[in-house]
């Protein structure tokens, strides 16, 4: 597993977000409270294995969050994808692809349907690494729209001629995600997509 420092370019970090939940003293005391783990730590105080246990404990409790705001222009889609990819750099290829897919589908929908066309309206994208999950928080200021309210599923029995060529994006998100959630918060649509770390 990469170290926290290795995974995160420091200039990409939100000041308030890094390691926001981490209390090293708590981690140590929890390790000490577990007799099996404490015993292993005591028995091999300087071994790599003991370090890995501690590091694993720390990393599983770390929440790393990166946020960036984009203008709602289709030409920005590549930058949005590059941003989410950099946020989980080094993680498994399937996860990277799924995160890219989720954000591309949401972003293209925001520009073409939400705002109607290219504009300078904001889209705020946050990627949070949260233990064994990647959480994508996606916000725009377009009119209220819940993408998950009515998701069209491709009909496996439909003939090629009758199948629609579009509208697969949101369906794909619901299939690759562990959980999808929509909320209208003030003047913003807030979509949360959780992906499991494979």
């Amino acid at each position, binding site marked *: 597993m990469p170290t926290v420092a290795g995974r995160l370019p420091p200039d990409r970090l939100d000041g308030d977000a890094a390691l926001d939940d981490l209390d090293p003293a708590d981690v140590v005391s929890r390790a000490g409270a577990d007799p099996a783990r404490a015993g292993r730590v005591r028995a091999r105080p300087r071994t790599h294995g003991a370090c890995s246990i501690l590091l694993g404990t720390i990393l599983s409790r770390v929440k790393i969050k990166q946020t960036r705001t984009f203008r709602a222009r289709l030409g920005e*889609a*590549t930058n949005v994808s590059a941003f989410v990819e950099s946020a989980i750099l080094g993680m498994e290829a399937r996860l990277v*692809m799924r995160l890219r*897919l989720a954000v*591309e589908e949401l972003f293209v929908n925001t520009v073409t349907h939400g705002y109607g066309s290219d504009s300078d309206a904001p889209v705020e994208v946050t990627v949070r690494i949260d233990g064994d999950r990647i959480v994508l928080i996606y916000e725009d200021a377009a009119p209220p729209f819940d993408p998950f309210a009515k998701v069209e599923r491709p009909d496996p029995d439909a003939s*090629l*001629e009758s199948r629609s060529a*579009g509208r697969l*994006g949101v369906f*794909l998100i619901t299939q690759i995600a562990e959980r999808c959630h929509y909320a209208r918060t003030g003047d913003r649509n807030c979509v949360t997509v959780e992906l499991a770390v494979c």
Partner: protein
Amino acid sequence: MLAPSGRVDHAIAEELRTDLAPYLGRCGEGQDHVVLDFAGVDYISSAGLRVLMLAAKQAKTQRGFLAVAAVPPLVQEILEISKFTLVIRTLPSVREAAAAASAAGLAALERS
């Protein structure tokens, strides 16, 4: 045999559609067989799927042979989730796609 590569996303979907158009125009009964070699494709989104769907519709209307071959596992997953494997012929390798194309050609010949 056409080999798109990289990311088949919204940014390049229209370009891909334009690039495919002349080949698809000749993808009919007794005409060209079109095989898309996907070995170099590492990402596909709904915009890319739309291009594939339109291509498959056109080929079917023209009674042509269109197949996608050598799809990497992560892209194959997306094709399966979206039920594309039911409407577009996918084959494990370019070799098998060529064999299927030949068989299709042979069958067409025997029908005529």
